[in-house]
């Protein structure tokens, strides 16, 4: 028996949970250097529901989830868990308060068993204070039976498939008796059958009263599993609706309904002959039958969501990870591109997506960064790099691109993202490319540098350079491109001309 006072208190919490949801956040703001990732964002998760989060790449979904899971601390705003205001200081803190997150990239320890992974830090002990493996195996079996998971608790995690690892992660989350379970694109690596099993587990968790936050790009999943959904756009809250009240087009409109400003100084320039032709380029399991043409002076935009494998196509074209089959023709002649050096010999240049990972030499100075590609092909005499000459070229290019740094001997790690990006563009322009592949040329840089880079791309096109530009920002794709190619899960899902393209049409092709 509980006392009337206790019962009343329980009722109060229960009522609050019903009204506010098990998790309710409001006014959340999060700023990273140079980017406002979340601005006055709200979200309410009711117990026993699946709540989908929708939005383009960079809308702020992942940042918000990391705040809820305690990875990031918000700059402002309130998080209420079961009606109480809480601070989530770390992932462990969030976990202990009842929030579990299943990360996109699974976080299991490969060389330990399934049971060890699930009960880590909470291992049952025998009377000698040592880990009781039999008990741990039994507990895991119980847990799996409850969740209808068919896995050996003693199996080593490294031997499991991705789907099985996902099951282990889910079981681990459930074992914490969490009230809120966050899943970040859990189906991205699963087959259809595995997805069905996952959904069965999710439905079961829902009946147990757990609130599930489900991040996805896939429309059909949204309608199949979600009860409610919330849309974000550019770090702002757009709206929350019942999944049964809306259509696919409504959601796409909510996701892309963005003003296109005139910050894209695209000028029409004459488009010349075909310079690059790609036929049925395939890298099994990654992308399939990618075909397109690119002409002199043309900017071909390449749009698609995360997982559309746009960057992999670019890497294949440049020989970083060559394709298995298909043809690449330059000036009408078939060519073999097995390495970046070969691609460069054909007049190609490739600005990679990730400045820090595959672009900058952070410990080296600006000049060295600008010159690295040039000196692989020329400007070496009698074994010595013609330093004076390449320095002059690099300085001129840095000036043309308005790189802001006190001097070009500055180490690149001390520069802002926009200036780093300009250095990388300078690197490639020095090689005088005829075909320029740009992967997210303006990601993570401030507005001023962004429009300068846009102006530059347009100028290059006007000089006859053929540009293939990958971008996750639809306004950028729409503003800059002569034509737009859209990819979806490793396939080209369509082409749009500048005149006919709009955000809804791109998203329809990208989200399928």
């Amino acid at each position, binding site marked *: 028996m509980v006392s009337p006072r206790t019962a009343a208190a329980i009722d109060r919490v229960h009522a609050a949970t019903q009204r506010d949801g098990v998790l309710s956040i409001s006014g959340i703001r999060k700023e990273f250097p140079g980017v406002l990732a979340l601005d006055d964002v709200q979200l309410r998760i009711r117990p026993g529901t699946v709540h989908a989060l929708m939005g383009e790449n960079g809308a702020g979904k992942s940042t918000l989830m990391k705040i809820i899971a305690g990875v990031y601390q918000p700059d402002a705003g309130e998080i209420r868990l079961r009606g109480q205001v809480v601070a989530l200081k770390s992932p462990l803190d969030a976990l202990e308060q009842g929030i579990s997150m299943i990360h996109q990239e699974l976080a299991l320890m490969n060389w330990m068993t399934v049971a060890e992974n699930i009960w880590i830090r909470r291992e049952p002990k025998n009377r000698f204070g040592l880990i009781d493996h039999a008990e741990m195996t039994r507990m895991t079996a119980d847990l799996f039976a409850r969740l209808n998971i068919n896995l050996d608790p003693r199996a080593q995690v490294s031997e499991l498939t991705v789907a099985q690892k996902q099951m282990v992660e889910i079981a681990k989350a459930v074992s914490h008796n969490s009230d809120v379970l966050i899943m970040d694109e859990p189906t991205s690596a699963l087959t259809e059958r595995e997805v069905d099993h996952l959904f069965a587990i999710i439905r079961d968790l829902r009946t147990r009263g757990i609130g599930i936050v489900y991040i996805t790009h896939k429309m059909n999943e949204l309608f199949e599993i979600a009860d409610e959904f919330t849309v974000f756009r550019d770090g702002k809250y757009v709206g929350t609706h019942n999944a049964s009240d809306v259509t696919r087009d409504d959601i796409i409109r909510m996701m892309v309904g963005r003003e296109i400003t005139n910050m894209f100084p695209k000028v029409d320039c004459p488009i010349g002959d075909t310079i690059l032709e790609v036929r049925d380029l395939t890298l099994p399991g990654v992308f399939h039958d990618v075909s397109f043409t690119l002409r002199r002076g043309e900017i071909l935009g390449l749009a698609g969501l995360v997982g559309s494998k746009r960057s992999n196509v670019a890497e294949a074209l440049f020989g970083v990870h060559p394709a298995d089959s298909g043809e690449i023709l330059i000036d009408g002649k078939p060519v073999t591109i097995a*390495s970046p050096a070969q691609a460069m010999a054909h007049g190609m240049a490739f600005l*990679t997506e990730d400045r820090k990972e595959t672009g900058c030499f952070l410990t*080296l100075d600006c000049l060295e960064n600008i010159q*690295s590609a040039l000196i692989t092909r020329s400007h*070496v005499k009698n074994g*010595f790099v013609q330093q004076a000459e390449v320095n002059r070229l690099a300085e001129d290019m840095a000036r043309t691109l308005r790189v802001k*740094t006190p001097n070009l*001997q*500055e180490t690149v790690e001390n520069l802002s993202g926009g200036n780093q990006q300009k250095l990388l563009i300078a690197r490639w322009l020095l090689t005088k490319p005829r075909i320029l592949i740009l992967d997210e040329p303006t990601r993570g840089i401030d507005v001023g540098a962004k429009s300068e880079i846009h102006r530059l791309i347009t100028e290059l096109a006007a000089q006859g350079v053929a540009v293939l530009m990958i971008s996750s920002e639809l306004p950028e794709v729409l503003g800059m491109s002569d034509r737009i190619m859209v990819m979806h899960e490793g396939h080209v899902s369509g082409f749009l001309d500048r005149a006919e393209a709009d955000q809804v049409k791109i998203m329809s092709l990208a989200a399928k």
Partner: protein
Amino acid sequence: MSSQDITARAAPRTQRKWPAEVNILLVLIGIALVFEILGWIFQGQSFLFSWNRLKIMILQVSVIGIIAVGVTQVIISGGIDLSSGSVVGAVAMVAMSFAQVSTYARAVYPALTDLPMIVPLLIGLGCGAVVGLINGWLIAYTKIPPFIATLGTMVTVRGFAKWYTKGQPISFPTEGFAWIGSGMMPVVIFILVALIFHVAMKYTRYGKFTYAIGANAQAARVSGIDVERHLVKVYVIAAMLAALAGMVVAARGQTAQAGMGLAYELDAIAMAVIGGVSLNGGRGSILGTAIGMIIFGVIISGFTFLRLDAYYQEMIKGAIVVAAVVADVHRQRKRRKTS
């Protein structure tokens, strides 16, 4: 955010920083001064103003300095080479066996005595190149971590050195061969090697590619650099320099033993690290390593001068290496925070 904020962020300290080598030079001067003062206090004489002491000091470290030049470019490329000490031992044995005089009755190859000095020299460098090829191939193409790959060759090559004459030392070299280790020759060879690689690292593609790979191997690949092939070159050169050092040691002592060069690799790495070469790659210079080498020498001869036990030397040497690495890690962390 206004455009003014942007320019403010893009323009860091306008003050020109002096090269990192200056700091290391200051450390060297500081340590030397400490020994000078301790010298007057405990020994009643100057530490620095003794030509003989300085000569012995520089001779002591030059041989390992030759190895350190090779190790420096390996570390700048983002790797490590633990096999150099074993290469010293093995190459000392092999080269010496082709450098013996005919008047010695028990030569290893009685038919191949009194050969011109160039023959054992080239054979020795060739042996070094083979070990380097194995190191480089393992690291670049099978993607084994450099630490493990060179640990393997370190043990194997030492085993080879012992097997070569079943543990017997090899002595009685020709005058020509002995010449490369005589007098101040080790120092001359070190200076030549250091100069050549100082220029190579700064003014040739070889050096620029090495820095680029160490700074960011992925970015280097996308820039059109054949990363794998270049790494093989780097390890081959490092092993050849260790081979050269091995021959200098053998020539100087006029004898070769399988155990020669034991733990030289660690001293060479220590010189580089003390000289400001970052174990994360992409940062450091031959000049820095040269200063690191002298710091190393000053500390050893300083302890001898103060008549401290050799045991203390070892312990302090270890502590200094750890301190240098801690300083490097600390610098990186500070940089990451400011950027």
